[in-house]
């Protein structure tokens, strides 16, 4: 009973301090704004430059592969493996492109070589058409598409335009769905964006509240009261997490709402945030909240070890770089798999979950493991913080 009321008393005071101070509120909301700006710049570059591994070999399925093109392929040493279409089931191959098991589907007209040989560009009749199906939301497929089109383009000009590529306007050659594009884009961008957003939100409050109080000597005033160190640790972390959650949610909302506009993608059908359901957003929120708990308690422990806010910032910076690297890794390799147990690794698990949620390719067990592991780590860190508050070496260090 007393325990709970003391925790509440400590929490209330922390909340009052942050929400009652205009300057503090601004500091809290600023990171979101900054990243928002950064993001609009980054968004563009990212869409253009989705990366594919250096040594990747594209899988191409071709129908009616003409001898001439085959010869060119053989001579050019391109990173392509071409196989013949399995028995003319075009829909199945297109589905494979959509799913990413096949990067490119090329359909030549039957007897392409002889049709090209007899075609007269002046005749006015349509030239033989090569149809290439690809998926723009997959960087591999886009890569294969540009390799194949440039190869055929040069062949075409050598032949004085005796055939066309993807001329038909009534056929969708890009097999990506708007969902694919949104999902891939967000799953690459969001881990880094969100984690940095959350981290800076936590960094704005925790060192101030813990190292700051230590530096100004007001923490010692608390330590002579009957307040238990565990109550102090728990109350502080709970309140700081709440504050960080408000700032985190604020920034996240801003980003999500401005996302389609920023990308100019609504009309182009590029971004469709409506594709996520309530369950997806609920999972995302849960991951965000548990990540904030981890960040706040990690930063709090470091702040308790520091003698001043300045020293605390210095100690937190390497942690921030680590978080950045881990989430940046998630952006470079959205499909990297450390197995399900990888979801027990803090920060990495958050990055993977966020990426998974945005590409709609997550498993409930992954979210669960993440939440459990983050909760366990937070509990440990709260205990550690209580121990630090109890340690005269840490509290009264000269």
């Amino acid at each position, binding site marked *: 009973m007393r325990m709970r009321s003391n925790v509440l008393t400590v929490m209330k005071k922390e909340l009052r301090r942050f929400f009652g101070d205009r300057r503090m509120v601004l500091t809290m909301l600023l990171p979101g704004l900054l990243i928002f700006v950064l993001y609009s710049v980054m968004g563009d570059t990212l869409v253009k430059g989705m990366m594919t591994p250096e040594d990747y070999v594209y899988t191409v399925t071709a129908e009616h592969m003409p001898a001439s093109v085959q010869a060119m392929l053989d001579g050019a040493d391109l990173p392509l493996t071409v196989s013949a279409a399995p028995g003319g089931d075009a829909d199945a191959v297109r589905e494979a492109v959509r799913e990413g098991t096949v990067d490119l589907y090329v359909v030549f007209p039957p007897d392409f070589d002889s049709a090209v040989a007899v075609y007269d560009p002046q005749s006015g009749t349509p030239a033989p058409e090569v149809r290439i199906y690809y998926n723009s939301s997959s960087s591999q497929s886009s890569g294969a598409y540009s390799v194949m089109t440039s190869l055929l383009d040069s062949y075409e000009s050598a032949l004085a335009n005796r055939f066309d590529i993807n001329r038909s306007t009534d056929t969708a050659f890009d097999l990506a769905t708007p969902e694919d594009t949104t999902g891939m884009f967000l799953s690459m961008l969001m881990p880094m964006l969100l984690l940095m957003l959350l981290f800076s939100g936590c960094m704005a409050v925790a060192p101030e509240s813990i190292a700051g109080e230590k530096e*100004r000597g007001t923490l*010692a005033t608390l*330590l002579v*009261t*009957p307040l238990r160190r565990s109550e102090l640790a728990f109350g502080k972390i709970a309140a700081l997490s709440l504050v960080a959650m408000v700032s985190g949610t604020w920034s996240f909302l801003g980003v999500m709402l401005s996302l389609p506009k920023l990308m100019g993608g609504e009309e182009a059908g590029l971004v469709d945030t409506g594709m996520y359901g309530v369950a997806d957003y609920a999972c995302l929120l849960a991951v965000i909240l548990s990540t904030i708990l981890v960040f706040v308690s990690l930063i709090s422990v470091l702040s308790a070890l520091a003698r001043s806010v300045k020293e605390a910032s210095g100690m937190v910076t390497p942690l921030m770089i680590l978080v950045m690297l881990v989430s940046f890794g998630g952006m470079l390799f959205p499909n990297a798999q450390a197995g399900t147990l990888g979801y027990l690794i803090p920060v990495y698990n958050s990055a993977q979950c966020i990426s998974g949620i945005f590409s709609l390719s997550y498993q409930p067990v992954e979210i669960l493991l993440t939440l459990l592991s983050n909760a366990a780590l937070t509990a440990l860190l709260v205990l550690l913080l209580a121990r630090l508050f109890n340690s005269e070496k840490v*509290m009264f260090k000269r």
Partner: protein
Amino acid sequence: MEPILTASHLKKTFTLSQKQQKLEKSGSRVKVAVDDLSFTAYRGEIFGLLGPNGAGKTTTLRMIATLIRPDSGDVSVGGVSVLKDPATVRNRIGFLTSELKLEDFFTPDYLFGFFASLHGVTPEVAAARKAELFSRFGIDRFAQVKVANLSTGMKQKVSLVISVVHDPDIIIFDEPTNGLDVLTAKVVTDFLEELRSRGKTVILSTHIFSLAEKLCDRVGIIIDGKMIQCDTLEAVQAGESLEERFFTLYRDCVGEEA
């Protein structure tokens, strides 16, 4: 006379960092700050720990206030051991030093309520005590002003008031008049005398002889972590002024070691 606080054979050693070692001009890694120190304080008296800077006064008071643990020895506060039940001890004492500060962002009014709540004082009792203490120290007019905007003297008064929110029987005060202007210092010493008249026990530390002579019923002289003499003020003075007496003791003490 009823003993209310007994310190027995307190010892505290600090391990010095390289930097501190140079500062203290000490050749050894360890510093014995308090060395086998014992004394007893009785109900309703003002007890003074008197000694030069670095003698170990603050360290002793911190051990009593449960902020740091003695390496050996114990303090019994109203029969409760600081080692076995620090939480109860914290509830029985009020601890104040000029190093203990209040957060700038809050008002005296809010902080009083906050600390009252941590001490488990009911809101009704807290409100009555606040009214009494705030008017006694002229804080009422500043009750809603943030600590940051108060004068140094007013800050000190607010700290003093807040250290006794829970009406403790024992008040521990490290260098009570340090850094105060004469007017605020007078307010503080008057309050300490008032507490004594209400049957409270005050344990203070000071390096100012005149303050000890004016306030204390009994004094303990600490030099280099050791209790050199502990008795009533008159007995320690032995017909001399406290200052003369101290230097006699100091010479004896340092001479002994040399």
